[in-house]
């Protein structure tokens, strides 16, 4: 019995000592992090001005279809008849026919507003984030079409897979209260 008690008390001592040592980091780490703790969380957003429309938004998101889709900043749009984001390069006729469209899933609808302006709207259900229209608009137009991560789709991964591979490092964490980085913020 004596031996057992000795063992028990030794073991208990080791346990209590160990507990104290081990609790230390649990106290120290949050203390260090007090200044670096934010009460609100983060969401992922693409900076539309850094984006190079490489097309990886479609393929690298963990979700299929991707959580990043094309958004139209109407205030920046020129409402052109010859839209660089809607029409394929080098088309001879301007119509809504599939042979002229740049979007592979027919996600952009073209609506006549008044002479000579046409309005282009994105149907997000159809958009798969390939960024072809964004590239076309950026190259030949005002750049009013841009890729952006949509929060109704994004699962807010701890590390965004698209951000990890974005060639221009355009995707970063922004406070959840800001929610979006639209292109026509000014």
């Amino acid at each position, binding site marked *: 019995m004596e031996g057992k008690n000795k063992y028990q008390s030794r073991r208990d001592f080791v346990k209590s000592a160990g507990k104290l040592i081990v609790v230390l980091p649990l106290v120290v780490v949050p203390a260090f992090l007090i200044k670096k703790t934010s009460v609100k969380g983060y969401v992922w957003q693409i900076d539309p001005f850094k984006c190079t429309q490489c097309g990886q938004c479609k393929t690298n998101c963990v979700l299929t279809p991707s959580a990043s889709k094309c958004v139209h900043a109407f205030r920046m749009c020129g409402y052109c008849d010859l839209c660089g984001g809607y029409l394929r390069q080098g088309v*001879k006729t301007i119509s809504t026919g*599939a042979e002229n469209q740049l979007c*592979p899933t027919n996600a952009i609808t073209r609506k006549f507003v008044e002479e000579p302006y046409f309005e282009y709207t994105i149907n997000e259900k*159809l958009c798969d984030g390939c960024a072809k229209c964004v590239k076309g608009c950026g190259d030949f137009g005002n750049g009013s079409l841009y890729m952006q991560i949509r929060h109704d789709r994004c699962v807010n991964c701890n590390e965004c897979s698209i951000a990890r591979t974005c060639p221009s490092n355009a995707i970063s964490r922004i406070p959840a209260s800001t929610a979006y980085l639209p292109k026509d913020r000014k």
Partner: protein
Amino acid sequence: MKFNFNEKDISILKVVSQVSGGFALIVALTMIFSLVQLKTVNPLDNPVLLSIKEQYDKDPSNAAKAEQVRAIDLMARKAYFSSRWQVETGSYLLVAGVVIFIFCQRMIAESEKLKPVVADTKPDSTLNRGKNRKYLLSAAAFILTSAIVSSFFLRADLPDISGKAPTASKKEAKGDEKASAPDKTNWPSFRGQDSRGAAGGKGYPTEWDAASGKNISWKLEIPKKGKSSPVIWGDKLFITGAQDKFCEVYCIDKKSGKILWTGSASDIPGEPAVLPKTDPDAGLAVSTAATNGKVVCAIFSNGNLVCFDLDGKKKWMKNIGVPESSYGYTSSLLIYKDLLLVQFDSNTKISLLGIDLESGDQKWETLRHGRAVWSSPVLGNFKGKPEIVINGNPYVSGYDPLTGNLLWEVECMSGDVAPSVAVNSTMAYAVTDYAKLVAIKPDNGVSVVWEDNTYTPDVSSPVATDQYLFVSTGNGDIACYNALKGDTLWTHYFQDPFYASPLIADDMVYFLDRSGKTHIVKVGATFKLVAESALGEAADCSPAFSDGKIYIRGRKNLYCISKN
């Protein structure tokens, strides 16, 4: 859950689990199959659709073709969206099937209540401890050896941190090479030593007249035409010429004006059969040669690059690819230590090449970004660090002459960039017509100090001292700026445009206009015209200065001007 399962229940569970398991398996297989299909041919990018679109592009008015495109596009889109729907529903079905299967299997496993089997002997704790120690040791040894072995295979390409790499420290990278004052005899490349536009020595003539022969030492008709400038080493002058595809390098005795030897730079393997587009007046001999006293190298607008020793023996020759650009290839060569630096500008690729002078092998190639230009590289020396500065579009950039590493770049140019930069001991000046003149200071990074766009040459390269910057334009204007601040100190208008670059010799700036007249102005803050001397022949090439004599290439002839 303490259900008491009887035989019937178990068999029902078994059947249900088999059905759900089989169902899940089928769904999984179909999903894998459709995923594989998607991977091989993306419905939206399928080759049929692409070829139909191509066909339609060739014949856009064909309504039938348009209809075909529409039909196939619709099919493709439907296939795409249906495959997405399939994957989505498939995954739900799969999860449902697997859940039911697992549930049933758990029930079955639970019902198979077996009495716990007690082993004959209780595990010996000491023995086991010893065994586990051995196992842990061997596991650690295994991990250690595999880590060490893999470290030999997974070599990582590290940056070159040997000695004083220019990229090593963020502190002021002071080099240890001093800029040497220009030699009075040798004029080794376009615009002189290091392409800086300054001549060494004194006593250069300021007055001459070709018509009367005053101060003209000799005149030689160059066998083949060209726009390259002469280069000089010792008593030998080298110049190039070309007629159609026949390219030649001439070695001329600078004292007598006689051709010592002619080297051929044609019939080189890789030479294009069709001549690239160049200025029709110029021909292929536009780039100025370069020499270092041991060899002379020349490059022609068809990409032919040759190297001779000073006695005319060919050392090596190669064709580095045909540089295609709107005005043809015009960049001159520069020699730095054992390297021949070639600024290669073509519509498809622009780069800076470092070629070994001895063997002709390409040591390195630094790809530049931007568009093709017609300027030449200049060797600057900023705080003891030698840098190659290239006027490009849109970047003016600095490179390490030994490794070709990009040191800095400034985005500031546009249009047809032909003038080379001017350098002094701290700044580089880049300019082109229809753009602006930019004064750049490469110092712990790079900054733009001042800009101006009043006097912008289209062809002629400016020249700078530490106090003044001299510019001559295609309008006939010449201007002098304060090199540090950028204020215009004086300007003057002459009748004829300037193509040749202004050069500084003996405290005077020599401006050679296209009519062949040289206007010599004193280096200073006020305009002081010293003399004007006529060549009697149109001239576009920058002169060469050596031992008190000036060598100017006119349209046809090479003149040696010296004070008699």
